[in-house]
């Protein structure tokens, strides 16, 4: 196809939009290397002082660690519950199970502030305010929709007649689930688990409502840092997270290419 005005318009437009998506995220990198004590571009030389500040501050480190382990626990809980849920619904495939699936995705649609209000009041009566268990429970609920959606999507590729055949050959429900359905659900479980971890790792509004000072997660530290904003340590944290994401994305692209060969 020869290059036409139409094509040039769309191609340039698309790359410009992609630049708009990417560049603002990258801006934290130079800022994190600034030699000044305030937020800005490096003045005279590059400096790692704000990374040092991060690694020397027990509060940043413990917040990071808290976010990681809470994220892992949430990923496990949400994947287990969500997978069981999606498999059950897939077998049932009736009106009731569709309603159940709608109920499970409500957290995606409800505004974060509204649901956090609900959490707060209920967590007060349960005594879960400012506890790790309270955060894990809230995050698990928020992560469930993503797990159930991705597991269900993975099961769309499984022919319902296969488990039926297994059943008619005498396998029990649990045997069928374990040896036929679970392997088919696996890709969805992995995606869902990663989603669940990210949902928990990035969640901020709920944490702001249901924690006080015992529990501090990384997003909460960043939020407080932006409000206070006095030093660029937060830019170094952001850079590390962005680089981690970039590396992960690059690996996925690369593996996709390899797989395509």
């Amino acid at each position, binding site marked *: 196809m020869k290059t036409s005005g*139409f*094509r040039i318009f*769309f*191609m340039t*437009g*698309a790359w410009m*939009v*992609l630049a*708009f*998506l990417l560049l*603002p*995220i990258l*801006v*934290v990198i130079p*800022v994190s290397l600034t030699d000044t004590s305030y*937020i*800005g571009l490096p003045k005279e030389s590059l400096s790692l002082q704000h990374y040092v500040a991060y690694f020397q501050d027990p509060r940043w480190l413990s917040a990071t660690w808290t976010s990681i382990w809470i994220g892992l626990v949430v990923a496990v809980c949400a994947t287990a*519950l969500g997978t*069981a*849920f999606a*498999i*059950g619904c897939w*077998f*049932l495939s009736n009106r009731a199970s*569709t309603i159940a699936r*709608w*109920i*499970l995705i*409500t*957290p*995606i*649609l*409800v*505004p*974060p*502030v*509204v*649901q956090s209000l*609900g*959490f707060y009041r*209920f967590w007060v009566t349960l005594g879960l305010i400012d506890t790790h268990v309270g955060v894990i*429970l*809230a995050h*698990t*609920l928020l992560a*469930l929709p993503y797990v159930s959606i991705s597991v269900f*999507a993975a099961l769309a590729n499984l022919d319902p007649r296969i488990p039926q055949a297994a059943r008619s050959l005498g396998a029990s*429900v649990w045997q069928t689930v374990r040896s036929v359905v679970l392997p088919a659900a696996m890709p969805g479980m992995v995606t869902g688990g990663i989603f669940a971890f990210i949902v928990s790792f990035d969640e901020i*509004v709920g944490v702001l409502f249901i924690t006080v000072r015992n529990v501090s997660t990384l*997003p909460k530290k*960043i939020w407080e840092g*932006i409000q206070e904003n006095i030093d660029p340590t*937060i*830019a170094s944290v*952001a850079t590390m*997270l*962005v680089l981690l*994401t970039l590396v992960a994305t690059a690996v*996925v*692209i690369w593996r996709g290419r390899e797989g395509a060969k």
Partner: protein
Amino acid sequence: MFRMSDALRYWFLVLPALAIMIVFYIWPLLGIWQISLTEPKPGVANYTEMFDSTAVQTSFILTFRIAILTTIGCLILGYIVAYVISNFARRAKPLMVALVLLPFWVSVLIRSFSWIVLLGRSGIVNDTLMATGITDSPMRLMHNEFGVVIAMIHVMLPFAVLPMMANMRGISGAYVDAARGLGAGEWTAFRQVYFPQTMPGVMSGALLVFVLSLGFYITPALLGGGRVLMISEYITYQIQEFLNWGLGSALSVALLVATAVVIAIAARFVNLRSALLERN
């Protein structure tokens, strides 16, 4: 008998997740409704206060305006990207898809922080503009609706691109080719043949972006300078500043109802099942 017990076993798989969702999520959500009718004392006082308040009305109008602007921005920019990925991109396709998805993995907080760094009075954009002599004094890019909308488009764009890409994947090139064969120009063929076929994708993208924008909190709170007071921020303001749980809950109920109404209206134009329940 045999079938019945099977169904029961499947329900055992469904129940744990469903039960904790209902007990710990849906139930507290309904509790908000109750708070709005009982605090500080029983009755509908919070609702009359809310409907009488011009500030609340203004905030609702502002919330819808920003959600609409964000949605329009996301649709235009997102369409271009989705179109190119689906029709033109060859080798660059995985890279382009990855770039669309990338912001998904970087937290909203960090992206808002980036925009603060960029748009501030002594931020990078202003510094550059002044250093290159384009302006002599800093422009106001942040602490207003402009800054909020730009940053929100950035946050929401992937939600618009993905459904449109999914939709375009299913569109056969044959119709456009046929139109071209019959002598239509590239633009005409696009406008009259291709574009109408993509409407379902556009509508589901619009729905997602709009609904998520309505309830958005982080970005407006950080970039709005307090004057771009969307409903979510108004709710936290009532509760944190005045411990006014009654009005805060009434506002939450109103926001929830507004969201539900938007979804109900959208149901006429969008296949909700594929837009929400079965998206990847």
